[in-house]
């Protein structure tokens, strides 16, 4: 069997079919001092061919969430409840061996600081060959593998000669592209890209994002973007989720969430960058710091910093409820948020 990118382009994509369903995922880290609640009641769905974004401050749990999907968490992490269904199958119930077989083949991941994803003592091409050997044992001979790897390199814009080079011979941006090439190697249904453009200069950033977008639409792949850079996410995603202190506080179509954020935190986050075009708006600062997840605040985790907080907010956790087509918010007072908008725009 020969894999080719052309085959993949013919992949039938049904945008209404869910690919990955995260259902009420709860996970914490066990440390000496107690338990750190890293992900709490996380629920969202990635459909086939969809690009989903997850934004939030550092430490809000987005990377932990990503790692939980692939069960790559460190030893002191514990899953408490929830399901992660890939094409209907709950990944959390699988044996380690079964999960291993699905890694990279069904879901691939591009890590933060992907430049360091490469083992310095082996050639880049050989490290890509590794995944082919692991997941397509006996189905490809060496020449076919080489041809495939060269095609992958071409797809991400890397010269063919670099396949047999060592990682230290690549520049940072090239290494990033190579990681994407490796992620595509088994043509997975979903790629998780955690901060794919941090530590790269703006021009390279732009190129990488374009590449990813192109690959995604051409090959009908789903992508989960994780970033703290809202500008980046807004450009390339179809749906957007905002996380805070381990919880998903707002979720919906990107355009909608961006234009009309209804969760106070999401609002302040998305309005924290000035825009050159658009109405002149006063910048809304966000006071305080993210909470300590060892002892998270009662009720809504954002209430200590929220300008709209009421009595209820400190007692009861708001559920992630739908307010309009596909747009969900977890806030008791979401209707008050548009006032802020009016106030700030002069």
């Amino acid at each position, binding site marked *: 069997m020969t894999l080719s990118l052309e085959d993949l382009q013919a992949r039938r994509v049904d945008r209404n079919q869910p690919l990955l369903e995260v259902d009420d995922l709860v996970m914490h880290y066990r440390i000496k001092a107690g338990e750190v609640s890293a992900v709490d009641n996380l629920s969202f769905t990635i459909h086939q061919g969809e690009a989903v974004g997850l934004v939030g401050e550092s430490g809000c749990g987005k990377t932990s969430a990503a790692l939980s999907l692939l069960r790559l968490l460190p030893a002191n992490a514990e899953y408490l409840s929830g399901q992660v269904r890939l094409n209907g199958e709950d990944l959390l119930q699988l044996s380690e061996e079964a999960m291993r077989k699905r890694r990279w083949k069904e879901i691939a991941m591009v890590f933060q600081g992907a430049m360091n994803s490469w*083992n310095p003592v082996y050639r880049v091409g050989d490290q890509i060959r*590794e995944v082919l050997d692991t997941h397509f044992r006996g189905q490809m001979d060496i020449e076919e593998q080489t041809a495939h790897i060269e095609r992958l390199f071409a797809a991400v814009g890397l010269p063919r000669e670099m396949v047999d080079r060592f990682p230290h011979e690549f520049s940072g941006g090239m290494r990033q592209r190579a990681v994407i090439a490796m992620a595509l190697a088994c043509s997975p249904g979903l790629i998780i890209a955690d901060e794919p453009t941090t530590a790269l200069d703006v021009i390279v950033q732009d190129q990488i994002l374009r590449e990813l977008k192109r690959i995604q639409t051409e090959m009908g792949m789903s992508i989960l973007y994780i970033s703290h850079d809202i500008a980046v996410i807004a450009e390339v995603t179809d749906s957007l989720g905002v996380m805070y202190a381990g919880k998903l506080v707002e979720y919906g179509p990107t355009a909608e969430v961006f234009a009309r954020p209804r969760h106070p935190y999401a609002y302040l986050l998305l309005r924290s960058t000035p825009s050159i075009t658009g109405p002149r708006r006063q910048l809304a600062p966000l006071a305080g710091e993210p909470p300590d997840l060892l002892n998270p605040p009662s009720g809504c985790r954002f209430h200590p910093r929220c300008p709209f907080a009421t009595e209820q907010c400190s007692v009861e956790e708001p559920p992630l409820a739908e307010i309009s087509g596909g747009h969900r918010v977890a806030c008791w007072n979401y209707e008050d948020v548009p006032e802020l908008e009016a106030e700030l725009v002069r």
Partner: protein
Amino acid sequence: MFRFLGRRLLQMGFLFIIFLTIVWFLLQLMPGDITDTLIGDPSIPLSTRLELGERLGLNQPLYLQYWTYITNFFKGEMGVSFSRYPQDVSTILWEAIPRTLVLVLTATLLAYWMGFKSGKLIAWGRGGKTEQGFIVGGIFLQTVFYPWFAIVMLWTFGFFFGWFPIGRFIDVGLWQGSGLDATSVFVQLVFSSFIAVMVYAGARWFIKRTAGRLITQQRLERVAAAIVLIGLVAYWYFNPARTYVADIVWHTVLPVLTLGLVTFGAVMLITRTSMLETLGEDYILTARAKGLPKQAIRDRHAARNALLPVVTSFILAMGTVIGGAIITEQIFSWPGMGLLFLQGIIVSDIPLVTGALAITGVLTLFAHLVVDVVYTFLDPRIRIS
């Protein structure tokens, strides 16, 4: 590559000359010379002693003696031994070198091999009582008072259990009248073992090229090891000198084991530390995400990178190993260079001691070179392009 080697050899030569110079001048400060050994015998007149001194050039000014020594050294002549007059130093040392080399190399290679394996496995495991035990054991082996440890080993396994001979190189009574020379038999033994190791290494290289999966590779490697081992044993079994060879091997086990154990402890600890650091690297997480089998992650990715600092550590460890070899030879009466060195010091046999130190210097520098080359092969980041 060759330019690199050439440059390094030149560097080494330079360093060696400095080393030899320092050693030579230092040893000249040792009291006594050959005429002292003759003082005890009153029948030898003073004139004879003076004449001997003159003949050996001991009356000449120091810098001239130094120059003579250096020039002679590179011709392979290291002077005449004071305590074993008139044997010359090169002959004496030539016989002793292989014995010390076998002791040190076998012990070190075994220690590094087993030490790396254990350290790797311990670091990979999730901790717990076994890891703690190994760590304490390793530290114990590294800090135990070596002479005492060697004595205890000798007494326990040689005297108490009687499994091994109590020191020495051969059982002299056994060899008398056999017409065989212990050194030549020994050299034969070493040579055949070396061939066996080369064959095995070649087999492993071949297997790596051809076989596919990691597990098949390992199985084939084990088969190859078994074949080579059986072949070696069979070769000597059918050899008429086999009892004598067995005698030598029997005497070698305990000293090698003792020296090896102590080195093993240190290597295991260093490997564990290195593995732990490597396991925190990003590419290990990537390897896990790629869905690679656990063994591949542990061996191909983690251990392979953890190996680098361990190899470097060997350079520093060499000094300790040399010291350990001296003590081992002393306690086990193993007739190698270390024993000659000690004996030479006690009787102020300056040429012998100088020669022993010089040879040690040569071997040390050579080992440095080997380690450097090996490291270059292991780490593509510093490869000379």
